[in-house]
């Protein structure tokens, strides 16, 4: 994950300031959610499929050492050179060493959230290797020198005009050209040259199949295939949680992944690769298996299952907060609900303290998750952890403490209510103090003449039915 401290409140407000863009961003992501809904409606076993996926992942998380050993044995038999990277720095060192040993100055890379999280590109660039991200969205944000704002559609926060400007500057497209087809064609022409000219291809891994030593990589653009079939050196980087027992299990995930992500029945290219290509003498295939903080999530009984995530992005698309705050507000490589669940373990509770609160706990994320991570409950449990560790602001904790004390005494609660109702009228357009946020955007309801308990004592307990003619709906 990025080193900087996420500032969700500040950064989400920046994005919110452009109200028109917020509506546009919300609509673009809701469209993905809509396509996901359509795609899942025609799968007769959708909920069973999710159950199966969750059960496979739960099995995997309980058997990583066995599966890892089996995977490495089979991978090495297939010709992979396997490397272990306990930390992000190890990954960076291993990859740079391999590239330097092979005299690589130009590399192409298909999407890998792991390498993004470890800052691999920056390290390679700083050491004289040109790395070109080949996923179109990633290429766009790379040219803008900014991180992806979404794990599946990295440039979803940008409008076509902004991309047109960028391509005019970097790819020589006509000034003012903003047609997505023509812009995509320009990127295609440029990137195909880079595929051809690269001396190495870096990829991520979607699934690592233990019983055969194969990795599975999924793309729609074909960039992982073009970025492995042409270059003499392939380096695949995977988090240890990507293990699955068999290729048959991959079938379950392939049926879930693209439907959840974009509403396609399967990714356009779902490629299994096992070691170096025997038709190309001298072809090398390396596999780097990474921890880089995953052990902290693994050791956490309450949140371990978040390692099941297959990075489909469905929880981002459905999250009403993400849709209106945008990915950059989270300040982490993986944003949205899953990002907010991963971050406290990956970068520490102190740095990530705002993120579990960047949610209304509406639960839609939990319902769309193809591997059934109980995301909103995980956010809630992080909140408890943050409070225990003293990372919830004092004002909030103090208010809750006072509240709980006051609410332990019905007479005090009742008195407080009476006082509040007395001064209510003054506050209708603005409450002072910590709750000013309420009246910044909302009117208060009119103060009722009496509380329910007052009414019950005087009338309610004795009479038949209360009337509701006094209600104010205006």
């Amino acid at each position, binding site marked *: 994950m990025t080193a900087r401290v996420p500032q969700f409140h500040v950064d989400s407000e920046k994005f919110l300031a452009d109200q028109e863009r917020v509506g546009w961003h919300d609509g673009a992501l809701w469209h993905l959610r809509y396509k996901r809904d359509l795609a899942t409606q025609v799968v007769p*076993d959708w909920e069973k499929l999710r159950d199966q996926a969750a059960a496979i992942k739960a099995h995997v998380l309980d058997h990583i050492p066995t599966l890892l050993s089996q995977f490495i044995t089979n991978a090495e038999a297939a010709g992979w050179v396997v490397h272990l990277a306990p930390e992000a720095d190890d990954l960076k060192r291993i990859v740079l060493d391999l590239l330097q040993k092979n005299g690589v100055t130009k590399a192409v890379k298909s999407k890998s959230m792991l390498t993004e999280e470890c800052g691999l590109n920056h390290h390679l660039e700083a050491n004289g290797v040109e790395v070109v991200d080949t996923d179109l969205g990633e290429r766009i944000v790379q040219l803008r020198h900014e991180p992806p704002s979404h794990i599946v559609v*990295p440039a979803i926060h940008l409008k076509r005009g902004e991309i047109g400007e960028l391509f005019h500057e970097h790819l020589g497209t006509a000034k003012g050209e903003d047609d997505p087809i023509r812009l995509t064609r320009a990127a295609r022409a440029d990137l195909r040259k880079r595929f051809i000219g690269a001396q190495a291809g870096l990829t991520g891994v979607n699934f690592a199949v233990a019983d055969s030593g194969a990795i599975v990589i999924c793309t729609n653009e074909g960039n992982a295939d073009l970025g492995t079939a042409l270059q003499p050196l392939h380096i695949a980087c995977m988090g240890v949680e990507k293990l699955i027992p068999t290729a048959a299990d991959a079938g379950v995930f392939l049926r879930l992944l693209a439907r959840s992500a974009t509403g396609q029945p*399967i990714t356009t290219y779902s490629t299994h690769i096992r070691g170096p290509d025997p038709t190309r003498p001298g072809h090398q295939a390396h596999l780097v298996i990474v921890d880089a903080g995953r052990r902290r999530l693994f050791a956490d009984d309450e949140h371990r299952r978040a390692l099941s995530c297959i990075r489909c992005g469905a929880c981002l698309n459905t999250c009403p907060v993400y849709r209106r705050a945008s990915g950059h507000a989270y300040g982490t490589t993986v944003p949205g609900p899953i990002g907010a669940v991963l971050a406290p373990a990956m970068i520490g509770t102190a740095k990530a303290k705002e993120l579990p609160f960047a949610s209304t706990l509406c639960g839609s994320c939990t319902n769309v998750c193809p591997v059934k991570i109980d995301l909103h409950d995980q956010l809630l449990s992080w909140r408890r952890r943050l409070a225990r560790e003293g990372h919830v602001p004092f004002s909030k904790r103090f208010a809750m403490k006072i509240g709980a004390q006051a609410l332990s005494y019905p007479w005090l609660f009742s008195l407080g209510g009476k006082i509040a109702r007395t001064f209510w009228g003054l506050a209708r357009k603005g409450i002072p103090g910590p709750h000013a946020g309420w009246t910044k955007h909302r009117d208060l309801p009119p103060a009722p003449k009496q509380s329910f308990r007052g009414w019950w004592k005087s009338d309610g307990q004795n009479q038949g039915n209360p009337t509701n003619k006094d209600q104010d709906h205006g």
Partner: protein
Amino acid sequence: MVDGAALAAFSMRFQRPVGSVLKAHPGVYPGPDLPASWDVFATSLKSVGGVLLNAQPSQAQAIQAAIDMGRAPGRVVASAAAARLLTGVTGWETARVTTTPQEWEDVDLAIIRAESACAENAALLVTSSSLPERALAFLAQRILVLVPRNRLIGGFMAAQAELARRLADGEALHHATWMSGPSKTADIEQTLVIGAHGVCALAVMPVDA
């Protein structure tokens, strides 16, 4: 070879404590019984941007028409496995075994043979056995995929189970790709553009093999 001690140290970090109840694998999931119907395949294929062609009036004539379709074809290259199905068809060359696959960059139309097709998601299977000329299928501008008519599988669970058996049984497969339609992207304002980096058009023809 990975150093044993390094692997042990790495694995230790992901070891559940002694005495933990470990969850068993849920077992093989057969999935729903979906029909192996070319009509269903055609619908799926259309949804992912591909086109289904009929081998009419004859297989050779239909393939010839696909090659000549629309415009004067540029370079047409067939994989070795597909070449065997092109008797009576003209205007193509066979892909030769090469260590420099970059030379296929200027291919206009690639003709390849898929080993099976899946109706549920229009995925077509090519592997190092049927397509050792892997880069051809990604560098060409257009692609025609010939698939044996009797190799259509209904649901993807069954289709993938078949591939899984081959991998686990030790068949020396280097690569195996499920291809579903032409390459595509929607990274600019969610506008679907067919033809990202790979093929811009994909047609499928069921053939007698």
